[in-house]
């Protein structure tokens, strides 16, 4: 018996209480003790192995990479001998000053707001597990679903830079090169995606 929101409820039947293992690839249910899914051949485990430790590692790496990503130039445009580097925020300001509010907003959301939001959510989820906040698990799961859906949209700016680099190739007249921020931003986004893949939301409900 446990209390959620002051209501006493019957204990739910879970895979741990019943000694079952779910294959995360094909969603077949197995009994405890199997190491490989009989149906699809994937490795199976009750909870993702060392989920919390790996999530911490990737999320800290992502946070560290986000700092140079915002301070250094994302791309350097050379036109008639003069170099012009621009950071992510300068790119947003460029669109806003040219009255392209829609695109400016998209880039701001995709490359500044979303990465920061995603990292804070992952930290929050880890704290829910560490502090055994069972009543926060439902909210945590909603946030987890949200960052799962928006995760890939942070790659937008990277693709834009890469596309522009490959399309503008005038020898001598104008070139576009990727700046130091591009690689660190890329690393931050990829590490955040891996961190969410490694996190097992069921751990929040186990406490």
């Amino acid at each position, binding site marked *: 018996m446990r209390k959620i929101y002051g209501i006493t409820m019957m204990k*739910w*039947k*879970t*895979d*741990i209480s*019943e000694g*079952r293992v*779910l294959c995360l*690839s*094909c*969603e077949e*249910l197995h009994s405890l003790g199997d190491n490989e899914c009989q*149906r*699809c*051949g*994937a490795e199976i485990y009750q909870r993702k192995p060392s989920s919390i430790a790996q999530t911490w590692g990737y999320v800290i790496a992502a946070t560290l990479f986000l700092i140079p990503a915002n301070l250094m130039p994302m791309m350097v*445009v050379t*036109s008639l001998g003069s170099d012009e580097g621009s950071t992510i925020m300068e790119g947003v300001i460029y669109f806003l000053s*040219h009255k*392209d509010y829609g*695109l400016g907003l*998209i*880039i701001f959301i995709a490359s500044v707001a979303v990465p920061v939001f995603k990292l804070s959510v992952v930290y929050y989820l880890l704290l829910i597990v560490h502090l055994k906040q069972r009543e926060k*698990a*439902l909210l945590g*799961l909603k946030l*987890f*679903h949200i960052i799962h859906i928006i995760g*890939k*949209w942070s*790659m*937008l*700016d*990277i*693709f*834009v*830079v*890469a*596309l*522009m*680099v*490959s*399309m*503008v*190739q*005038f020898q001598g*007249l*104008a070139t576009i*090169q*990727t700046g130091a921020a*591009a*690689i660190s931003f*890329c690393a931050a986004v*990829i590490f955040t*995606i891996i961190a969410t*893949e490694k996190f097992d*939301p*069921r751990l929040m*409900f*186990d406490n």
Partner: protein
Amino acid sequence: MKETSCKDCGLIIEIEHFDMTHQYSCPRCQSIFYRPGESFDLVLVMALSAFLFFIPTLFLPILTLTIMGQSHSVTLLEAVLFFFHDGYYVIAIIASSVGVFIPLVMLFLIMSLIIPAKIGRPIKKLKKLFLYYEHLAPWSMAEVYLISIFVAIVKLAGMATLKLDAGLYLFVFFLLSYYVTVSWFNAEDLWNHYDEMED
């Protein structure tokens, strides 16, 4: 009778009569654990049309740029190869694999998973392909790539005179039909399909 467990909270769920056309959600955490996919025939048609859109983009120019009287047109193949010229290998590999290689591999995997299921071949050999598909699925980002093409064009239009060529439209159609293929295909249905065949 189908017995499963919620991926998100671990609840054991028993479904009396499992229906592949219905959506099911967990009674404890409300997250959807089964979402029906489109029929395999439709997915196959979309995957084939994506391939057909892709082949001509390799040879057609995607756009022509004019800066101060000097014009230059780029094909997709040139654009991908150019990534590797400047030494930005990491960005180059990521951008070209997300835009071109991952979609192609995913389309190939989806087709090689569906066709044997349609003609009723045994699953044993398919396990490997299925696992590759599962590992690759989180890195499929065609919709993000589509929007970034749009943003890049708007940015370039401010710097040079742009002429969009047939290759670009075909490439956009390729990404769109690839995106539709992936969102219609439900890999879990493959196993339900084989389970039904055994019954």
